[in-house]
């Protein structure tokens, strides 16, 4: 499946705009993002808070539809696309 990241995260994934993630089996949105972070460990502290949850500063969409935090356990498929948007960053 594909995962697209906000541009401010690009430097943690070698500036790739779109990433192909292998799905080892049936995965949820949360699990697919974990797969991504396993592949690019530099993302871990950027995306997850100290409790291991995705930080509130991120918006996640699956196939173009925004997901609330409690909807991120829905299954994804190999043709799907997750967008991980940074809600705001301080500069």
């Amino acid at each position, binding site marked *: 499946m594909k995962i697209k990241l906000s*541009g401010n995260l690009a430097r943690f994934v070698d500036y790739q*705009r779109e990433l192909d993630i292998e799905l080892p089996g049936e995965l949820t949105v949360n699990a697919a993002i974990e797969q991504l972070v396993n592949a690019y460990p530099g993302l871990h502290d*950027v995306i997850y808070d100290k409790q291991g949850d995705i930080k*509130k500063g991120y918006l996640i969409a699956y196939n173009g539809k925004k997901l609330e935090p409690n909807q991120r356990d829905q299954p994804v498929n190999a043709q799907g696309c997750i*967008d991980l948007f940074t809600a705001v960053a*301080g500069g």
Partner: protein
Amino acid sequence: MSERPVRVMRPMDPMLFDPLQFHTRYLLLLSKSCMWSWFYERTGISFPGLVRKHHQGLVAVECDVEYVRPFGLFDSDEFCVSVERVRARQGNSVLELFHEFSAQGQVFAKVRMLWRMLELDGDQALTGAPGVLRDSVLQRLEPCEIDPSRELRQVEVLRTQVEGEGEKIGEGHYPFTLYRHLCEVADQWSFLEVPGLASAGRERLIDALEQDPFKLRATLGRPLGQVLVKISCPFYLFEEGEVKTTAFSVHGRLVFVHRVINLTRMSTLAAVVIETFQD
């Protein structure tokens, strides 16, 4: 305690001007630079210190630029940029700064900025969430600099008025991609560039005109009088966008309204810019 203005003298430089007036983006750039002078001189906090020690950042949410009187490159040898006053507004979640640009004792432009306070997570991407001024920062403000009331947002008020009372006389689209020359340290668009994207949309609309019954082309020779900017959504490196520009005649007065759309982010409205011209 009274206000604590900070004033910085700057030399005249042709890069600051277009053929008609002071570039809007440089008014904003110098305003922000002067804001950090104010912070450092009046509170002892620098931008790196705000991020590292206080885990705070801020993002621009509204800019109001008013060209008060004509001012050109050869009108002075130097000019002054100032922070006249600072207010923590709306439960300390917004900073409001009032800037003036003057030369030889006369103000030629005013800038009002609204900054939304962020609480940063401390990661390298400067990820944040909207928050309030932490006590460690707030205690360095004077009582007169804290105003709990809600600040005035001008853009939506004017946009509603223009679209309600005005006659639509032209429309255009300007597609763009956000590359790094338009970004700040978080690979996020710099608020300075938003008026420039809007004016590019206006100029593209005018340049594409085959007929010009409303004499829009003549506005290329008229200086802007006011530029209002509202930023409502971030824009990051490589994201695709579009400026949708609409020209209105409002009681005989020309107004351009620009909607900046983030196409990559589910076509979210990212900013609104309203331009009017000097009489």
